[in-house]
């Protein structure tokens, strides 16, 4: 460090102590210069960072049942406390510090109360210990609640060193090298003398939020949406002027922030903010500002995704048996503790488990204090695994809460090249426990792949069989994908599914469209047969046992069937000759033929293009534009979801008081190019009378379709 700036900093410090004395947290205190901040950083660097024992505090989901302190290395319980916690506890200097019944209390790992002081009705935001002192901040309620207390006390007996009560929102403190580092009001980071409370330096952000301070090794970091390392460059007060790390933008499940809001206290026992978040640890040994292993970990209940810190690319995924209750990055990997008490250390390279132990006590919230050097001896036989394997695991499962994470995994899978990935997507798609929205996501991901068609063909080889326990394959999605891949071997299989009554009616149009795209001449006769069989298939049938005619097909299914027949009419007209033209004439003469089929036959006879999408496909447009079904060339699922979600609360009111609440409502409707919704049907039907008028009033975005079918799956979980 240069001598001149150091002297300048010292003179500034003396001036502030003697001449222009301002109270700590004064809004008029100017931001410190680079030298002052460098001096602070030097003091931290010079101070010896105390290595702490790896401890875990397992808080029961019912915080009234207290908590247990555990040795992470062995899983053994060191002590238990039966106090009713009023907020998330913290570990500082080997003590557990929590808030109970009007007091902040410090317990030893064995569970003995060491000291306490009054909380004055404020929530516990954080605690940090170093050099025999502990800093505790009370406040909470977010950055707009401008009231807080900073306590600095002797770690051993809790004797007060100083207390500062301020009209500012305080964040969690860090104490290191004789200084207390405290973010406040979302914009400032004050450095206070740990003995006197005098403010010795001030960092003010001019273009970002300051939400946390964190000590790692010989460095102090700060930030909120990004991570900066305290030093001379911090004086710039802008991200541009300060070396920093900012995670790349990524659509992560649950959209977690880079760091938890440091101004809002966390609840005890189970706080959802800890279940959906990003976890990372600064690497003080790396040049500049970096995170350990170059990875940021996204947690979503049971799923953990390891993301490249620089690119945001997914490296691997891991699915915990239980909800992840505690997570910490260490030099040997990622330590995860689930709510069943299973602790697992995951290798940073691929996420396979290298160490496991069972905690003797479990909790919905596990607070960890684990030094970066934590590296237990390997005790598993788990081998390395590929990213594909880990993503396949993350994309599966039947836990409905994990659908956003599963969708993310599918999205990441889709981005991976190779036939093996296609096989993985097919295997996911053929799981019949798959949530409908996830099925759509997988199907869409599959639809654009050209590698690995063998897996798709293999899936299509199966036909539903009740006795043999085989369910119908998702032939619609497979048809789209195989057409995109121009896999002509699929034609015969698709024809067989076209005539299989177990094939979902919604899959028929994609199959017909795929046969059109494959242009296999042998499918012409099959498509003509399909038109013959179903063009007049309207109305009821008397049961075999006798009685009145029964209309056994729902209106929605009839519409879907008509769509498929209409498409087949167009394909037959395009590929066929005179016999097929005679068939179309007969279709037109039949008075019972539905309007969609009739319109298609009219277009075909007049020589008009089959439909705009087919014309686009002929002109070389992307195969994804193929008119498989109405919604796929009209509005996207997201557009429909966005428009419908605005009325979701009203729709859910229809379920109030219902004797049985379904997991979801399936709403099918027609819409036109101006976004008007008509002919709404709802499953379960019992809710249709109430839901249909609400959905019918929704204004969808305008699109280029004349008329199309749309589907909205309304999840009913609150």
């Amino acid at each position: 460090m240069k001598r001149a700036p150091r002297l300048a900093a010292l003179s500034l410090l003396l001036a502030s102590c003697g001449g222009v004395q301002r109270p700590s947290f004064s809004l008029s205190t100017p931001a410190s210069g680079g030298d002052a901040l460098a001096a602070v950083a030097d003091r931290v660097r010079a101070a010896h960072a105390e290595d702490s024992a790896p401890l875990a505090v397992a808080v029961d989901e019912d915080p009234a049942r207290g908590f247990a302190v555990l040795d992470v290395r062995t899983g053994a319980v060191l002590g238990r406390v039966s106090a009713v916690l009023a907020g998330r506890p913290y570990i500082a200097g080997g003590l557990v510090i929590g808030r109970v019944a009007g007091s902040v209390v410090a317990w030893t790992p064995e569970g003995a109360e060491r000291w306490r002081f009054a909380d004055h009705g404020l929530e516990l935001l954080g605690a940090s210990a170093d050099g025999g002192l502990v800093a505790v901040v009370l406040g909470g309620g977010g950055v707009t609640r401008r009231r807080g207390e900073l306590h600095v006390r002797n770690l051993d007996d809790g004797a007060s060193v100083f207390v500062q009560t301020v009209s500012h929102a305080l964040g969690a403190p860090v104490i290191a090298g004789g200084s207390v580092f405290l973010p406040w009001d979302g914009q400032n980071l004050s450095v206070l003398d740990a003995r006197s409370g005098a403010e010795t330096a001030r960092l003010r952000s001019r273009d970002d939020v300051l939400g946390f301070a964190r000590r790692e090794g010989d460095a102090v970091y700060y930030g909120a949406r990004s991570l900066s390392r305290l030093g001379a460059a911090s004086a710039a007060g802008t991200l541009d002027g300060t070396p920093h790390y900012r995670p790349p933008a990524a659509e992560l499940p649950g959209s977690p922030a880079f760091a938890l809001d440091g101004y809002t206290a966390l609840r005890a026992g189970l706080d959802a903010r800890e279940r959906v978040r990003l976890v990372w640890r600064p690497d003080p040994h790396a040049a500049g500002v970096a995170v350990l292993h170059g990875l940021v970990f996204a947690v979503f209940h049971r799923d953990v995704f390891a993301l490249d810190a620089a690119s945001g690319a997914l490296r691997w995924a891991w699915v915990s048996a239980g909800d992840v209750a505690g997570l910490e990055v260490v030099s040997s990997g990622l330590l995860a503790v689930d709510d069943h008490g299973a602790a697992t250390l995951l290798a940073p390279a691929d996420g396979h488990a290298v160490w496991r132990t069972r905690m003797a006590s479990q909790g919905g919230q596990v607070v960890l204090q684990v030094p970066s050097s934590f590296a237990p001896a390997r005790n598993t036989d788990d081998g390395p695994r590929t990213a594909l394997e880990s993503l396949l695991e993350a994309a599966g499962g039947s836990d409905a809460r994990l659908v956003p994470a599963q969708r993310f995994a599918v999205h990441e899978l889709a981005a991976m090249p190779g036939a093996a990935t296609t096989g993985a997507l097919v295997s996911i798609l053929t799981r019949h426990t798959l949530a409908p929205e996830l099925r759509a996501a997988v199907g869409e991901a599959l639809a654009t792949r050209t590698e690995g068609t063998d897996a798709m063909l293999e899936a299509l080889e199966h036909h539903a069989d009740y006795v043999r326990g085989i369910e119908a394959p998702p032939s619609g999605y497979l048809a789209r994908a195989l057409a995109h891949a121009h896999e002509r071997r699929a034609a015969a299989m698709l024809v067989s599914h076209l005539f299989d009554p177990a094939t979902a009616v919604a899959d028929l149009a994609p199959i017909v469209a795929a046969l059109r795209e494959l242009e296999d001449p042998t499918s012409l006769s099959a498509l003509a047969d399909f038109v013959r069989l179903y063009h007049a298939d309207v109305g009821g049938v008397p049961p075999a046992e006798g009685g009145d005619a029964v209309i056994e097909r729902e209106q929605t299914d009839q519409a879907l069937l008509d769509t498929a027949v209409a498409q087949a009419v167009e394909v037959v007209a395009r590929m066929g000759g005179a016999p097929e033209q005679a068939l179309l004439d007969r279709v037109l003469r039949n008075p019972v033929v539905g309007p969609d089929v009739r319109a298609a036959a009219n277009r075909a006879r007049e020589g008009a293009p089959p439909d705009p999408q087919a014309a686009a496909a002929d002109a070389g447009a992307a195969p994804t534009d193929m008119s498989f079904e109405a919604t796929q060339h009209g509005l996207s699922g997201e557009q429909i979801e966005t428009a419908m979600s605005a009325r979701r609360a009203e729709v859910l009111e229809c379920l109030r008081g219902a004797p049985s609440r379904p997991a979801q409502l399936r709403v099918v409707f027609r819409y036109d190019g101006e976004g008007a919704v008509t002919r709404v049907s709802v499953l379960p039907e019992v809710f249709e009378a109430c839901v249909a008028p609400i959905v019918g009033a929704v204004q969808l975005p305008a699109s280029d379709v004349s008329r199309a079918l749309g589907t909205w799956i309304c999840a009913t979980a609150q």
Partner: protein
Amino acid sequence: MTTFAGRARAPGFVYPSAMRIAGVLAAAAMVQAGALRAQPLRPGVSTTAMVHPSPEPPPEWDLGNSADTLARIARAATGDPRRGALEISSALLAGVEPQVAAAGLDALGVLARPESADAILRFLDHRRASLRRRALIAAARLRTPAMLRAIEQRLGDPDADVRAEAARTLADVADGPAVRALWAAFEHDAGTGLGSEGSSLLQESAHALGARGTVEDMDHLLTFLRRAPFGALARAFDAALRRPDLPDAPKLRIVQALAGLATPQARELLQQIADERRARPTPYVEAARAAVARIQ
């Protein structure tokens, strides 16, 4: 008292819906059905040198006019059987309204001509379950190996009524492979619960096994006592005991097994056996009578 054989379709099924669709067709069907009642099932038809129907409407048939088509089906069903089967099959393959298709399939069942095979096979895969059921009935009238294999496949149909209809149909015509398919269906549903009766597929496949199985099949069915719903097994045993081709020994084993159960349902079935065969005492009827007296 429940009659365990009561749900089975009588051999002379008269296709009542066809009567509802058009009076002309109804009359034709009744004529045919009357003839069928007096006769046992036809032997399997040969498909050699068969003329296949065209998927185009027969000349002068206006398939867009359902009333006219129904009338033409009725006439075709009462005229030359071969030509009638070809005309009706062509009409069905060319595409008609579902109520017309139902009548046409009923008529093809009555005609039982090999020329109907293409149309029947097509409708065995139709999306309407009601038409698949009718196609099953018509397929059973043909009794060709190809039809039997097609009927077997419908045991795995997605619709429960069609599955049951397939099993019910096989009770009349099942051969060895079909019996094996029936066993697969029976064993699939034997463990699915649904009370003392079991699923409709279980009941109908049990009945078909009782009606068409071998002596070994009867002994195998006995191993399901206490493991499968009794209602379904009762239908199997009732069908087996009614068979003139089955020796007395397996019948006696069935009665003895039922007597060993000593449950009210078993007693009810034994009572039925004893009552219905009072005039024809055989060892198994005597055993049933003795068991009824013993079971309280």
